[in-house]
């Protein structure tokens, strides 16, 4: 407690960002420290789990220390610690969990485990202070493409998800093949702005009528085949056009299905979350398609879309308030479901 505010420290190490943050009353970000490893993993063309774990270990103390310093508080002011315990890379998750438990024990602070995906949704509580459930959530990231109904805090009903590649994964693969490199999402977004989205007719995969699931592997194959054909025919490939057309085929289906889900469940708001939620074309298309049906679209600023500790702190705050029991025997669960 400081000045009458309940302070939560959130710790996040599920993939390649070591992050910690102090959040007041579950809503107000006092500090948000994110130490990214992207520069290290770029040399390998993607996240190397063993290296990610090693780097988390080296950085987690200072990231936690800086989160406290930046917020102008000390460990004894912290009322609650929240930590991501899944889903994610097991070796990466366990650094955050071990650190959180050691701190909780050493400083007598209650600890709750947070589902990383609940955290992504909670990022919106930090941005939109009036937002409360119920709402529809669209989570799009390197590992996830999911439509989730959120009836109350930290309650998630998954309505649809990808049957093969996540959207971010498809972006990464195509980005690599057209020479844009890693991380694919932001690079495709940038290249697409210079390209013509209607130049190549990539298919839109909607699956069975009414389905809220996704499939991107066929689209990815189509893109790879297109590139091969162009190369074999000796035709020059316009990287920007490929990026724009491919991106459009991905985000159009996502936006359509998110709007369909909100209509079906009578939700007047769609909340966007996850790294790919910062894709500028997806954001624009969501506004357009949802707006046409009178549905509001809420999204966190890009810094809260990437993995961060603040969203974990917010989700932890609401879990604790709902009566979740502190747990010093918390384990990491890499395949944790919603």
């Amino acid at each position, binding site marked *: 407690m400081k000045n009458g505010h309940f302070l939560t420290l959130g710790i996040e190490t599920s993939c390649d960002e070591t992050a910690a943050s102090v959040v007041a009353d579950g809503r107000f970000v006092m500090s948000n420290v994110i130490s990214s490893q992207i520069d290290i993993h770029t*040399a*390998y*063309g*993607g*996240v*190397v*789990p*063993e*290296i990610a*774990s*090693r780097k988390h*270990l*080296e950085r*987690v*103390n*200072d990231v*936690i*220390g800086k989160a406290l310093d930046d917020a102008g508080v000390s*460990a004894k002011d912290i009322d609650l610690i929240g930590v991501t315990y899944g889903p994610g890379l*097991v*070796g990466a998750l*366990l*650094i955050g*969990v*071990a*650190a959180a*438990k*050691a*701190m909780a*024990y*050493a*400083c007598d602070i209650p600890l709750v485990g947070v589902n990383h995906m609940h955290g992504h949704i909670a990022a919106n509580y930090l941005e939109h202070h009036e937002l409360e459930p119920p709402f529809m959530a669209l989570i799009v990231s390197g590992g996830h493409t999911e439509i989730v109904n959120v009836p109350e805090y930290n309650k998630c009903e998954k309505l649809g998800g990808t049957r093969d590649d996540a959207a971010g*994964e498809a972006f*990464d*693969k195509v980005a690599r093949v057209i020479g844009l490199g*890693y991380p694919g999402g932001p690079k495709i977004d940038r290249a697409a702005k210079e390209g013509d989205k209607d130049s190549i007719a990539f298919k839109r995969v909607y699956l069975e009528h009414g389905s809220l699931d996704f499939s991107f592997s066929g689209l990815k194959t189509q893109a790879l085949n297109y590139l091969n054909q162009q190369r074999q025919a000796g035709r020059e490939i316009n990287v920007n056009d490929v990026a724009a057309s491919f991106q459009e085929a991905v985000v159009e289906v996502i936006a359509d299905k998110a709007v369909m889900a909100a209509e079906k469940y009578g939700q007047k708001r769609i909340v966007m979350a996850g790294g790919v939620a910062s894709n500028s074309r997806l954001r624009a298309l969501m506004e357009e398609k949802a707006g046409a049906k009178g549905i509001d679209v809420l999204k966190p600023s890009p810094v809260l879309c990437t993995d961060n500790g603040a969203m974990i702190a917010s989700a932890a705050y609401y879990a604790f308030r709902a009566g979740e029991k502190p747990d*010093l*025997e*918390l*384990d*990491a669960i890499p395949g944790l479901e919603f």
Partner: protein
Amino acid sequence: MKILAIETTGKYGSASVIDETGRVFSADSREEMNHLKGMITLIDEAIRSAGITKDELTHVAASVGPGSFTGIRIGVTTARVMAQMLGIPCIGVSTLKAMAEGILDEAISKDALYVVPVINARRHQTYAAVYEAEFTSDHEKQSAVNIMEEKQYMIEDLLEELRTKLAETDGAKAFFTGDGIDAYGDIIRSAMPEGSYLFADEEIRYQHSEPVARVALRMAEGGKTLGYDELMPEYMRLAEAEQRLKAGTLSDRIKRASV
């Protein structure tokens, strides 16, 4: 002095508290690879059985490896953050050295000259070393002195070097310990001359925090302490992707698989 020692590099986790007189209070688990889940409970039990509170701790020591990468990371991270939050220094103890210390009395009582901790690193690889008991000037306490470097050995190479050493002293015996016995027992039996070696019993074969605490106490007395951010794992091996990157053999297939 009240030192907390953590051991998580093998399949069983344990925690001990040692005081300046050398009294040790331990808590250990027989559940395999339960380190992340069980470590705080073990630490709390060890501290309680020592009759102190965590705020009375003066140092946090960890067995830093070699061993299971995952296990090493859990122990080292726990030690680093506890030390940071309690505002006390860390001590980094070599896992192999602590294993040697742990069976030293047993080895001496069995007349073995050398103690050989061997950790299974798969595919005929080991993390190993050879130690010899050395008595201090008062001839009461003995400690393990390293005579063959702590590093990665192919089991066959380790045994060959060891045979050469044993041949220098008539009737000398080597006392093996660690899960390397479980993995390479048959190879050791067929490579070593009859009567030249002994295996530690299963009850004392695996890593434990008690000898970690004993080594840590001597290091603390000698001023060999570290800031929490200086306590680092001793993996003894680069990550596979790093090896490939250095060797220039990082293939596209590996890159894809690692995404």
